[in-house]
């Protein structure tokens, strides 16, 4: 099971690892079931890892990313030796410490100080070493005043702070971290995060499992993307993370579309079944109309569109077009595009102000503006009309973006707001710009 490292520069070598889990139809840990099932293999083998291989160099920080259940935590558990691979080998050199379970072995009736010793000893740290680090640990936890109180009197945040302080202050060559950086308040999280970066700067090898792509990008040199028990891609953190996010978003949108259809179907059925009061029917009808309305006014309507507002005016048609005037939602960085917005006013006395915003698929608000601020005008006294917003040069880089459209009055009251109406894909960028958007720039070598 445990092999020797073949390349001395590597801290971890994983070779063609397979892992099966037995999935019992009804897991029989009761003796009766064990006896009844003797000789019958009443379980299925589920292959969680289907042969993965990778190396981690000494001093490197690597993240494993992937959707829930893809096998990344299983991989991490095998690196800690809690699970054994069914096939393949894992070789590691150096002392391994894991931040998988925080507060292991904490006893609620013992003091914070006593629990530090217990917790550290479970990680294999000698009491002498804890003596030496005790002040660091207590200082890191910021619990100086409370350290001699029983842990049961701690708030959950204090508890986690103490647990994290012990875990992060261990001496190791390889640190395995499973999704635990979400501890405590913002200030403490930042502190933990910086500590992790310090450890890395001091040459510790780190393997991280995280769903926080932002953290992964900041700490890790390299990312391994696991999908369905296989390595789908690996490479520099920024590139793999972006590809992963895009892929996740596409899958999510597909899913939302399916769910929206199912929901509409169900609501239609419940309307027809007629066991509901008139009031309930009206609510459902309105919801149905709403989602249909978004589709009706915009052929490019995304599955996530949500609409609300007072209704004195409303959008009647929204379409995004390219330079040639053809409907289009896929662009390249630098393209010109226009959005044609038709509306009607049910109450012509209102001064209508149009607002538009762009949000990236990971909920970073990228850009927005409003007509009144840009032009000094609002629209009033018209029963219907059209406004056109033209973006001369799309600076956004590769990714999926949501477009929001709002009609407000001059006081900011929301008359008709549609979030995520159009999903815009920027499919090509220069490849030389990184971040959210491109900037006009020059390099000069002098």
């Amino acid at each position, binding site marked *: 099971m445990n092999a020797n490292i073949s390349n001395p520069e590597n801290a971890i070598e994983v070779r063609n690892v397979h892992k099966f889990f037995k999935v019992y139809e009804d897991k029989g840990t009761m003796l009766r079931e064990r006896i009844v099932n003797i000789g019958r293999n009443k379980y299925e083998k589920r292959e969680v890892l289907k042969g993965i291989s990778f190396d981690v160099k000494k001093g490197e920080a690597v993240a494993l990313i992937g959707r829930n259940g893809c096998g990344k935590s299983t991989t991490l558990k095998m690196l800690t030796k809690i699970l054994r691979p069914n096939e393949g080998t894992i070789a590691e050199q150096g002392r391994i410490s894991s931040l998988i*379970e925080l507060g292991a072995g904490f006893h609620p*009736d013992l003091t914070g100080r006593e629990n530090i*010793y217990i917790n550290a000893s479970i990680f294999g740290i000698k009491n002498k070493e804890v003596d030496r680090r005790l002040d660091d640990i207590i200082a890191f936890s910021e619990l100086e005043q409370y350290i001699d109180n029983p842990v049961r009197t701690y708030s959950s945040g204090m508890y986690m702070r103490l647990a994290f302080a012990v875990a992060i202050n261990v001496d190791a060559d390889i640190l395995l971290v499973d999704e635990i950086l979400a501890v405590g308040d913002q200030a403490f999280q930042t502190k933990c995060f910086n500590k992790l970066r310090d450890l890395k700067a001091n040459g510790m090898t780190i393997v991280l499992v995280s769903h926080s792509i932002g953290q992964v990008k900041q700490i890790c040199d390299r990312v391994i993307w696991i999908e369905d028990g296989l390595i789908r891609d690996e490479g520099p953190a920024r590139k793999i993370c972006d590809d992963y996010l895009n892929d996740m978003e596409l899958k999510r949108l597909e899913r939302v579309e399916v769910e929206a259809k199912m929901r509409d179907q169900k609501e239609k059925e419940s309307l027809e079944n007629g066991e509901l009061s008139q009031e309930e029917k009206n609510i459902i009808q309105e919801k149905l109309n709403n989602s249909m309305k978004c589709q009706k006014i915009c052929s490019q309507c995304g599955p996530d569109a949500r609409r609300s507002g007072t209704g004195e005016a409303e959008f009647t048609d929204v379409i995004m077009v390219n330079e040639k005037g053809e409907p289009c939602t896929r662009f390249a960085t630098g393209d010109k595009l226009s959005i044609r917005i038709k509306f009607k006013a049910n109450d012509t006395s209102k001064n209508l102000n149009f607002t538009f915003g762009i949000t990236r698929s990971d909920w970073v608000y990228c850009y927005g503006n409003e007509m009144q601020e840009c032009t000094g005008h609002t629209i009033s006294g018209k029963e219907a009309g059209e406004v056109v917003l033209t973006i001369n040069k799309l600076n956004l880089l590769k990714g999926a973006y949501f477009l929001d459209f709002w009609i407000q009055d001059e006081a900011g009251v929301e008359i008709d707001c549609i979030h995520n109406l159009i999903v815009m894909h920027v499919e090509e960028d220069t490849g030389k710009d990184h971040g959210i958007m491109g900037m006009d720039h020059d390099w000069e070598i002098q």
Partner: protein
Amino acid sequence: MISRLKEIIEYKDMIYSMVKRELRGRYQKSALGMLWALLFPLFQIAIYTFVFGVIFPSSIENYYIYLTAGIVPWTFFSEAVGQGAGCIVNNSNLATKIYFPREVLPISAVLAKFINMLLAFVIVFLFIVIGGVGINPAAIWFLPIVMIAEFILCLGFTLLFSAITVYIRDMEYIVGILMMAWIWGTPIMYSMDNLQPIVKVILLCNPMTSIVQSYHAVLYYKQLPDTLYTAITWGSAIIILVIGELVFAHLEGDFAEEM
């Protein structure tokens, strides 16, 4: 096997912590605290003495001392093995999340009970001194040897049962019932002297018989135990430990998956 032992020794601080956690944690919140380690056996002795000294009077002289010398070591055995059987499943949050030699858990569980027994021995010595039996220096030096043998036997059984309990949860209950019967198969409330030879042989198949007889010899009869008893004691303790560890080592790899 040697590397395994080395690793367990590496983790001796964890064993120390787990024992401390068990003992401190257990008594921390109760008003009488550690005193319970003495009170519990005291009441146990009082109840059995009432039954076998007053209701069904026994022919054994100084019955309560005879009883004490056997029941205190027995309590260690039955608690260590009975509660130790669940030591892996009850610590599943540790065993499924963190790597450490799994033997640490049964070792700590047995060690904590062992320390409890040492505390309870305050009562044993109190009784033999106050009761007039006294201490024979020529025999008493053998006491630690019997205790260590009993510790090894307990550890063997606990390794065995705790590993099996991971796969068959009923084991915990079965061990509980086993203990209930086992106490009567051990000469604690009665003496072996007046038994039929065949019954004696059957009782000697129980490794706890020779251990309890050794305690009786050293503490009650103030003499060195029979060589045969000592041989059975150490032989069975080592065999059970080896079997326990072999089974444990064999099953240990898949603990995390089974829990």
